[in-house]
């Protein structure tokens, strides 16, 4: 079997990056002083993958950016990650946790106006035969401190993902004003 270019791009780096490769589904910009959580509901089942792109800051001293799928707060998530603090590296993870992990974001008390960036992919989200796997790259640099992290999470459910709830430290914090989170569908 031979595989030709998936798209018409003339160079290798154009693969899968042509126009309309992904579609915007919904976006939230926090206009108030802060919100406790951001939720995407009634997600269409017509894409292959979902991508959540974020530029967020915690309104409290909590910095863990987490998610739950289909409102499931049970101990049905596992996480594995690799991260760098700017002076050290480490790997970590956990089993039977109550949320998936996106990464680490700037928090109240951090460098003013600094936010954390994140890209979270939810793979094959509409499939009804597999547990769901996510991967994320997320981090904040604060000019002298910061953290960059890669995480993979498993949600142990075969249900199709119809909603995503994003929280700071499982609801112990909130998203600060001007935080933005956007949901996209990626075509297969």
């Amino acid at each position, binding site marked *: 079997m031979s595989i030709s270019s998936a798209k018409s791009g003339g160079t290798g780096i154009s693969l899968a990056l042509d126009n309309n490769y992904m579609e915007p589904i919904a*976006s939230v910009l926090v206009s108030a002083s802060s919100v406790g959580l951001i939720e995407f509901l009634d997600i269409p089942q017509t894409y292959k993958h979902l991508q959540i792109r974020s530029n967020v800051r915690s309104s409290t001293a909590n910095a863990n950016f987490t998610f739950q799928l289909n409102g499931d707060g049970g101990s049905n998530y596992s996480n594995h990650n690799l991260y760098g603090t700017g002076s050290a590296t480490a790997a970590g993870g956990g089993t039977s946790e109550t949320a998936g992990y996106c990464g680490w974001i700037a928090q109240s008390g951090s460098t003013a106006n600094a936010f954390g960036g994140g890209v979270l992919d939810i793979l094959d989200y509409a499939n009804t035969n597999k547990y769901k796997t996510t991967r994320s790259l997320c981090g904040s640099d604060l000019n002298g401190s910061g953290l960059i992290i890669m995480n993979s999470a498993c949600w142990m459910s075969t249900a199709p993902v119809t909603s995503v709830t994003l929280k700071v430290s499982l609801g112990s914090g909130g998203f600060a004003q001007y935080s933005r989170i956007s949901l996209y569908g990626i075509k297969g």
Partner: protein
Amino acid sequence: MAAKTGTYTLISSSTLTTTTATVTFSSIPSTYTDLVLVANPLSTNNRDVILRFNSDTGTNYSITFLSGYGGGTPAFSSGRTTSQGFMYADYYAASNTTQNIRQINIMDYANTTTYKTALIRSSNANAYPSGGVETLVGLWRSTAAINTVAVSLSADSFLSGSVFKLYGIEAAK
């Protein structure tokens, strides 16, 4: 919820035909939510790829990185730079004529209230043992909307054949 039409739009593309010190994307429209710069930079010598926004050469850039090195004794490390006059887009250098790729996500680039954060992934596919992979988060301490992105090397120039593509991602309205 109903999705709108597609996004991930090519804004500009440059494939160098001559040796070039700096590739500049200017007059970037503010109509997107994020920018993604995909680059395949080539150089004669091993050099770092660096970024500047809006022609700012002040010491307003910093990064935190995590890198893996495959040569000799394979290792990984983390480090940072602070208050520099540019943002590193890799720790490992663009290398000779070997393929190497950077994907640079510039988040919420057009807003005028937050400092700007970039998430960067890079790989250097130099033949063993000198290759490496790296991911970085960068901060530009400015609330200005980004309308210009300049890509350079820490020294020398990009070689002919280097490719740079700038995409815009537009969130739902």
